[in-house]
């Protein structure tokens, strides 16, 4: 009897395991978005955490093993993962997640990218000529990506097409309402001058109307030095700012150095899901982001 129960449980488990999509998201925001759209229909894991710099991840054995078993890769694209994702795909021996296959989803293909310079000269630092890849910081982009990701999930798992469509509709509704609320709450932030650390906040600034006056990094991807920070401090004397913005994965030292001397706060924004205790999902992410920005304004 016990054996039979065990067998049936095992069979059921095997069946459900087959039915669910195995999704590997490159960054936590896409894991959260896939979870919103797929719910229990997908087993979603993320290759990076909010405390890891998505530019600089190693193609660790554990990631290769997960890529091997993935039905779908959901990544940012726009060269953000160029240092590790191509290797992960090649080493995986998994034909489903190669470029051009339905199992490879690049979010950047579905949004309008800012800072498309087209210039690929490394004298300008670690540039992304195709555009700034940190577009998850504007929640309006999440709506667009969800609208593209839902059909992709349907394509891979047509049996559950209506569930994905319904979940997307529900997500869009909740997100549109939330965006309206955040925009209202963040109205006092419009025109507020800020200093950023790396171009991680271009989309957030674009959305909320923050005015980016300077970047701690002298050039994208180049670590700030004492002399570059001193130069920046001089500039802030004539062009004062209200706060310095940074991600959880960036060094706190350059920001603190400048903050102490310029007498302004450094705000560590969650940047992505899991970036702070309150940023448990995509809604919490922006609740916390707006709250922290407003807190620093006081």
């Amino acid at each position, binding site marked *: 009897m016990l054996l039979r129960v065990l067998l049936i449980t095992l069979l059921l488990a095997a069946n459900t395991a087959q039915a669910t999509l195995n999704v590997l998201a490159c960054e936590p925001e896409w894991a959260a978005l896939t979870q919103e759209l797929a719910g229990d229909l997908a087993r979603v894991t993320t290759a990076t955490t909010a405390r890891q710099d998505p530019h600089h991840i190693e193609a660790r*054995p554990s990631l290769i093993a997960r890529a091997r078993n993935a039905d779908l890769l959901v990544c940012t694209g726009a060269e953000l993962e*160029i240092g590790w994702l191509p290797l992960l795909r090649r080493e995986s021996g*998994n034909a489903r997640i190669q470029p051009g296959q339905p199992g490879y989803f690049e979010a950047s293909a579905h949004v309008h990218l800012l800072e498309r310079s087209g210039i690929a000269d490394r004298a300008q630092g670690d540039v992304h000529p195709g555009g700034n890849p940190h577009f998850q910081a504007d929640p309006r982009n999440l709506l667009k990506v969800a609208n593209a990701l839902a059909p992709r999930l349907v394509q891979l798992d047509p049996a559950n097409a209506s569930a994905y469509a319904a979940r997307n509709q529900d997500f869009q509704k909740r997100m549109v309402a939330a965006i309206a609320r955040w925009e209202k709450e963040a109205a006092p932030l419009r025109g507020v001058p800020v200093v950023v650390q790396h171009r991680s906040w271009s989309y957030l600034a674009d959305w909320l109307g923050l005015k980016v006056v300077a970047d701690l990094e002298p050039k994208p991807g180049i670590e700030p030095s004492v002399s570059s920070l001193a130069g920046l401090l001089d500039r802030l004397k004539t062009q004062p700012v209200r706060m310095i913005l940074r991600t959880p994965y960036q*060094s706190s030292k350059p920001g603190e150095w400048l903050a102490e001397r310029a007498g302004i706060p450094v705000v560590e924004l969650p940047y992505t899901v899991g970036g702070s205790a309150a940023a448990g999902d995509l809604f919490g992410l922006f609740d916390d982001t707006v709250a922290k920005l407003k807190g620093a304004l006081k």
Partner: protein
Amino acid sequence: MFKPTLLAAALAGALPLPALAVSDADLAALRAEFQQQLDHKLKELQARYEDRLKQMEARLATPDAPAPAPREARSNDFNPELSLILQGGYARHKSGERRPTGFLRDAAISAPARGFSLNDSELILSANIDPDFRGQATVILADGQANVEEAWFQTLALDHGLTVKGGRFLSGIGYANEQHPHAWDFADNNLMYQTLFGEHFTQDGLQLKWLAPTDTFLELGGEIGNGNAFPGANGGGGRNGIGSWAAFAHVGGDVGESSAWRAGLSRLAARPRGRESKLFDTAGVDTNNTFSGRSRTWIADFVWKWAPDGNPRERNFKFQSEYFQRDEDGELIHDTSGVNTPGAYRARQSGWYAQGIWQFMPRWRAGLRYDQLHRGELDFGANQAALLPAGYTPSKWSLMADWSPSEFSRFRLQLARDHAILGNPDDHQVSVQYIHSLGTHGAHKF
């Protein structure tokens, strides 16, 4: 339908021909019908234009409605990714070759350069060939020559965790074997790899790899090759059959968020014919020797990487260690350019190295490495008296610090104490090195 009626009406209105005897009532009826149809048609047209206007307005209102052209990551459009590695520097050490005492080593390894020198410049081209294959070539540019270090294709679409590589490629055995010199953490190769392969073991052949469908990384691989490269050799004559076999297994995983590891076990077998090695005989004369027989090598490797929260950007630590055991037996012809005396040769030797690299702040790293070789059982048969050196354990300490202004450039200072040769220690090796990467350079393996 509309046009003939219109025409008829126009004719009727313009040419009131009395001969046709058309009554006023008839004409009025026709006019009314015409007016009605015209009105109707106009309304229809108006409605149609209004619809189109509305559509255009709607499109203008949402600026991003025309979906941006999907632009997925491309590597330089259809051109191959092109990358050039520039390496060079300054080295200060004793002159001559530094062959570890008691080991047969590839005769093609030349003495390391002293003073200012240009190291190998690597030119790397790679691209997807088609949806099924990827290709890469690495050419080493040196004075007056260009050596093909690698030129291979790799499958992309075999699926089921399978990958086949063919051509000339760096063998998957060990850990450091697949690393190009620019990816080394020290200015020179470790003694173990220097002794075993010169730089690294290269196969001209085929490789099959399989990645298990498990959550823990488990990779199995097998290779066959022509066995031209040391420890194989074909005496310049080549062979139809297989000259070298390799098999390897790698396992790996994460420990928490901060640590990742990989361990491996590899086996390399070769049947060298007329393999050339230089040896100092017991009288101190440098002699040429050739070996033919069987060569089998075990390699165990282990790598541990740590970074706070798994974010290596600021601080990280890497520990790497490998151990080998090589068994060779066959015939050694001693002093081929002189007396030419054959004798049996049997050796069971081993060695290891361990190194730690510590990035203590962004851009800055420091590293320490220790190498040791064990002569083990060594039997030169009939040439024993002429060749067997006194017991000695070659070893080397290396200490390095490097600074990387960006991801693409690096400068390194290395100090070493080299005790590879019996009675000839070199305690004050100094190297200064630069490594620059130009163009699109693919990611390095874990």
